[in-house]
C-alpha cells in the first residue's frame, strides 16, 4: 500500500495518525477476510490471480476454515 509521506511535506501529526489508522484498518479487514492470505498464496506459489488459483487456495484453506471455532 503506497501512501503519501506527509512528514516529508511537513504534514501535521493528526493527519499522519489518521492515515496510519486507516491503513491498519484496511490491513486488518484484508486479513480478517482472507484477502491477504490469498495474496500470500499467489506469491508463495508464484501464480496469477485466476479462478483456478483461487480454487487451489480454497482447497488449501478449507481444512483450517472447517476446524476454526467461532466464539460464543
Amino acid at each position, binding site marked *: 500500500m503506497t501512501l503519501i509521506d506527509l512528514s516529508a511535506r511537513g504534514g501535521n501529526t493528526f493527519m499522519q495518525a489518521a492515515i496510519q489508522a486507516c491503513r*491498519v*484498518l484496511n*490491513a*486488518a*479487514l*484484508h*486479513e*480478517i*477476510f*482472507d*484477502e491477504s*492470505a*490469498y*495474496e*500470500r*498464496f499467489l*506469491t*508463495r506459489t508464484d501464480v496469477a*490471480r*485466476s*479462478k483456478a*488459483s*483461487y*480454487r487451489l*487456495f*480454497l482447497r*488449501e484453506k*478449507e*481444512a*483450517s*476454515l*472447517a*476446524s*476454526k*471455532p*467461532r*466464539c*460464543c
Partner: protein
Amino acid sequence: MKIAKILLWLAVSVAGAIAVAALALHRGESINAMWLVLAAICTYALGYRFYSKFLAARVLALDALRATPAERLDNGRDFMPTNKWVVFGHHFAAIAGPGPLVGPVLAAQFGYLPGTLWILVGAVFGGCVQDFVILLFSVRRDGKSLGQIARDEVGKTAGTVAFIAVLSILIILLAVVALIIVNALKDSPWGVFTIAMTIPIALLMGVYLRYLRPGRVLEASALGLILVLLAIFGGQWVSHSSASGIFTLSGVTLAALIMIYGFAASALPVWLLLAPRDYLSTFVKLGTIAILAVGIVLVHPTLQMPGLTRFIDGSGPVFAGNLFPFAFITVACGAISGFHSLISSGTTPKLIARETQTRVVGYGAMIAESFVGIMAMIAACTLQPGTYFAVNSGAGMVGGSPTAAVATISNWGYPVSAEQMSTLAAVVGEKTLFFRTGGAPAFALGMAKIFSDSLGGARVMALWYHFAIMFEALFILTVLDAGTRVARFMLQDALGHLWKPLGRTSWYPSIIATSALVVAAWAWFLWQGIRDPLGGINTLWPLFGICNQLLATVALCVATTIIVKMGRARFMFVTLAPLAWLIAVTFSASWHKMFDPNPLIGFLAHARQLAAGPAGPGLARRIFNDRLDTAVCGLLIVLVSVIVIESARQWISVISGRRQPTTQEAPFVATQLAEEVL
C-alpha cells in the same frame, strides 16, 4: 511531562470512581447511559495501563527479543508475523459472538448494576487476564492448543478433561444459540424471510468469489450486505402479503429446520455456502457493533431499568436463581469466557510477531469484547422494565396468556399493558412480543430504539428491529455451523483412536455418522428447550454459563500451573484469584441447578414436582431430561474437580521444592525481525 501523566491518570481514576459511584448509589430515578460508558472507559483504561502492564512486566516477563512461532515457523499460511493491530482485529472478530450480547440482556433482570459491575471487574481481573496469559503461553509453546498445553503442563488427565469440557461446552452452546434463534424467529414471517434469504445471498457471494472476482472477499461481503438490506425490506413486504403464511413458522418447525441446517453444514463441503456466509456475518457483526457504539454516544439514552430489581432474591422470571451465583454465570463472554482460551490458543498465537504484542491482542481485544457487553446492557436497560419482562419471560413464569402476563408483571411494580405491548409489536412489524425468551428480541428492541432515535425516528423502528434480528441470527447461524463442524472434527479425532477410519476427515461414512451424533446431541437439548413451558432459557442458559465458566476454570488452572512452574509462584494470585472466584461460582451454581429444592431452579426438584403432578403426554421424557441435565452438570463438576486437584498437586510439589519448576516452553531463539518490521 511525568507530572502531567500522573495528573492525567489521577483524573481518569477520579472520573471512573465518580461514574461507578453514580451508578451504584443512584436510586429511584432513571440515569443516563453515559455514566455507564464513562465508568467502563475509565475502568478499562486503568486496567490496561496499570494491571496489564504489571502482568506483562512482572508476572510474565514478556521478552521482545524472543522469536515467536510466527517468525520461527513462518510458512506464509498458519504461521506468519503480522502487524499487531491486524492480529487484534482478527482476534476480536473471532472472540466476538452472541454471548456478550445475550448474557447482559438476561442479567438485566437483576437491574443494570450487578451485571455491569461484573462485566467491568470480571473483564479487568479475569477475562482479559485469561485471554492474555493463555495467548502468551501458547506463543511460547509453538501455538499449541489449550488441550495440548494442559496435557504437557498439568498431566494427561488434564488434557482429557479439557477435551471433554470443550466438547460439552460446544454441545450446550449450540443448543442454546439454536434456541435463541428459534425464539427470535418463531411466528415472525419478516425475520424468517430475511434469514432464509441469506442462504441464496451467500451462494451468490460464493459464485462471485469463485467465478467472477476470485478472492475479492471484501467486495463480495459489501455486495452481500446490500442484498441483505434489500432482504430486510423484502421481509416487510412479505409479512404484509399473502405469502406471509409460508414464512410464519412455529418453534418446532424452526427447530427441525435448524437441525437439518446444522447437519448439512457439518457434512457438506464448506465453500459456496458456509464460508461466504461466515464472511458476511463477520462483516455485518463488525459494522453493527461499530454503529451501535456511535448510536449510544449520539443518543446517550436513559436507562429505564433500576439499578437493582426485586429479582436479586432469585425469583426472576427470565431465569430463576439468586444474584450469587447466577449473575456470574449468566454474563460470561462480556466478563470472562472459557471459550476465548480456545481462540487464544488457536489461530492468534501463530500470527503474533513479538511477545510484547500479546498484551494488546490478548488483554486489549477482551476489553473491546467487554465493551460490547456493556453496550448490550445499555440496549436492554433502555427498555421500560415492564416491556423487558413481558418480552423475556416464559409463558409458564408469568401466567400463560398476555392478559395474565401484564397483570403479573404490573403487580411486581413494573407497569405494562397489553395495549402497549401490541402497539410496540405493531411498530416493529411483529404480531406479538410476549414470551420471546432468549434475550435476542429484547436486545433487538433496545438496539432498534437507539438506532431509530439517532436515525429515522419511530417510522423506521421496524426496519431497525429486523436489522438487529438479522444481525443476531446471522452470526448465531455462523456459530452454529462452525461449532457443529468443529465438534464433528473433535469427535472424529477422538474416535480415530478407537478405529482409525473414523478419524479420517475425508471418509464420508465417518463424516455422516459423527455429524449426526453431534447434531443429535445438541438437538436433544434444543428440543427440551422448545418444549419447556418456562421458555427453555431458564434451563439451558445457566447450563451453558456453567460449561463456559468451567472451561475458564480449566484455562486458569493451566495458567496458574505454568506461572508456578516458571518460578513466579509469588505472582500466582493473578490467575488464582479469578480461578478461586470461578470455582466458587460454578460449583455453587451447579449445586443449585442440581439440588436446589425450588423446582424453578433445581433439576431434581423439578423432576420430583413433575412426578408428583398429574400424568400427561411427555411426562416421562421431561423427568428424564431433568435427570440428564443433573448428570451433565455433575459430570462436568467431577471432571473439573479432577483438573483442579491435579493442578493443585503440581503447585504444592513445586512450591514445597519436591519438584523442579520446569515448563515445556520452546527454547529461546533471538528474533531476527527488525524493529520497524514490527
